[in-house]
């Protein structure tokens, strides 16, 4: 088991800079989730930790060992590849048992481990097939299996569940959490699934264009995103932003939008008259019980079963709202909404930083 210390880690392909000096500490035993838009460098960072990609500059410490040049074999890391990287000539059994075999464990021990992993992953029926004969999700599960049979110092997962159905995914999530609880091994996990990130992570790191935007506990990120990027990236459907001007009149601060709509906001350091953007998560809108909220023009209604998604505008800005109840307003009607002022995020209109 080992923590990670990453200091000013940078990566470039030729003239192209992919990572611009990442500073990050992963505590021993921590479950760290990396998220960020496609192409922001998550896989690259993971691959550098694994030793598969040269480090252009900076330092990588695994445990208390400077590991910049250490070959991957000597890092005792286990990784699920985004591309699966299954061995096409080996059966599922052999693929999963690859790690223990390399470590010259006894046949019986390997068998037992493979059996257990297959159980967890629902793969017992496929143990003797080769990857070519598997469906996409099955392949991904094999890749997962290859990883979890080992007891490495560090687990790396690159979107390990993206091809699984919701049910299996929930199940795998639980299994992984249990594995983490049991082994207490450090895990670094890349995902695009918000729920995965929020429920599994001890800490989430949000990356963007080769930089870390924010790192913190899931709720910290959700409740106090440091800037518009994090605020907009985390949470699905995403937060929408409405530009306006802060007004501090009598007591409670509020924001006046371009067409004069008034939305009360919570604590903020913004000065009166400062141009700001406020961010509100779709699920935080409530129907104003007495009709004296702000106006929302409904355009499209999309029921998802458990929720109803509304598309419309507030003060001419496109805003999506999500209601737990099944609403059925006609397109074109106007609703009156309120939001708990504590749940309204205020950002500097220029820098995009939380204020």
């Amino acid at each position, binding site marked *: 088991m080992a923590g990670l210390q990453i200091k000013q880690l940078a990566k470039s392909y030729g003239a192209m800079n992919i990572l611009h000096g990442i500073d990050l500490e992963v505590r021993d035993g921590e479950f760290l989730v990396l998220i960020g838009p496609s192409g922001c460098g998550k896989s690259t960072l993971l691959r550098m930790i694994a030793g598969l990609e040269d480090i252009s500059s900076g330092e990588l410490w695994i445990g208390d060992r400077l590991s910049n*040049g250490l070959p991957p074999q000597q890092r005792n890391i286990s990784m699920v*590849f*985004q*591309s*699966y*990287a*299954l*061995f*096409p000539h080996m059966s599922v059994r052999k693929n999963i048992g690859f790690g223990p075999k390399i470590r010259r464990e006894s046949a019986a021990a390997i068998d037992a481990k493979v059996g257990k992993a297959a159980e967890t992953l629902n793969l017992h029926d496929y143990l003797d097939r080769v*990857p*070519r004969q598997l469906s*996409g999700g099955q*392949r991904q599960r094999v890749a997962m299996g290859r990883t979890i049979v080992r007891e490495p110092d560090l687990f790396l997962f690159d979107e390990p569940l993206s091809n699984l159905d919701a049910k299996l995914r929930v199940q795998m999530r639980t299994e992984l959490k249990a594995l983490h609880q049991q082994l207490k091994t450090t895990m670094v996990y890349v995902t695009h699934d918000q729920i995965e990130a929020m429920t599994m992570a001890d800490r989430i790191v949000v990356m963007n264009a080769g930089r870390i935007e924010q790192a913190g506990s899931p709720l910290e990120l959700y409740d106090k995103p440091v800037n518009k990027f994090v605020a907009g990236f985390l949470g699905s459907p995403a937060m929408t932003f409405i530009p306006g001007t802060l007004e501090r009149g009598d007591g409670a601060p509020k924001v006046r939008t371009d067409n004069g709509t008034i939305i009360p906001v919570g604590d903020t350091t913004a000065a009166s008259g400062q141009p700001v953007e406020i961010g509100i998560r779709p699920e935080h809108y409530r129907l104003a019980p007495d009709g004296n909220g702000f106006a929302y023009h409904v355009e499209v209604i999309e029921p998802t079963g458990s929720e109803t998604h509304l598309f419309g505008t507030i003060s001419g800005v496109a805003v999506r709202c999500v209601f737990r109840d099944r609403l059925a307003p006609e397109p074109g009607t106007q609703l009156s909404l309120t939001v708990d002022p504590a749940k309204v995020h205020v950002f500097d209109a220029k820098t995009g930083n939380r204020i």
Partner: protein
Amino acid sequence: MSKKLKRSILFWLFLSPIVVVILFPYAVMAISSLKSATEVLNPTWWPDELHWQNFPEMWRTSGIASALANSLYVSGLSTALTILVSIPAAYALSRYQFAGRNAFRQFLLISQMLSPIVLVIGLFRLVAGAGMIDSLNVLVIIYTAFNIAFCVWMLQSYFSTIPRDLEEAAWMEGASRTRTLFTVFLPLAVPAMVVTAIFTFINAWNEFVIALTMLRTEGSYTLPIRVFSLVAGRYTVDWHYVMAAAFVASVPVAILFAWLQRYLVRGLSIGAVK
């Protein structure tokens, strides 16, 4: 970077014994080709005097120029023809299941098994019967036939490693099978085609027995016949000329290698299954 340097040194150290052994005959060749007639019999490593004129003299006396042209013609053409014929066959073997598939593969192998030395009598009767002796084109066809087995086997093994879904994707986009073959499939098979091309070219370039049997006149002789006639059974052998000729004969091939080797390895770099 320095990692690469370290690796390079290590690899070259490892390669050096074999490289020395490989270069040894070439060194002998190169040095001998620069020795004078009197010195060529002495096993000295450095001649007293470099006889560069051996090369022009050899060029003039041995008729190697036209032989070079003939060899290039035969080798080039049979390489092209072999690849042309082998690709469809290899494609069929790797992408279709059909009765007789394995039988065909084994038949190809069997076609390689008779030693050309024996085969030549029968072949010659065939060609003579058709009245086509002394034709370079007949050589082209025979060489093609001889190389098909290797090419088909090689291409087929390689084709099988190219993921099927790439082709499928092209079909979905409306590309016909042939079009797919040329735009998607073959570009990915370049390394294998290079291997087979080199192989065919070299075989044709160096083949002796069949060329000797089929060809008649000075004007149609290929390089090996020319070079061998300098040694084979003469009462006196001008080793310095022989070595110069051998050297000249290997230059075009070496250039070919230099050009093709870069295409030899171009990893597919596609994920295993995704």
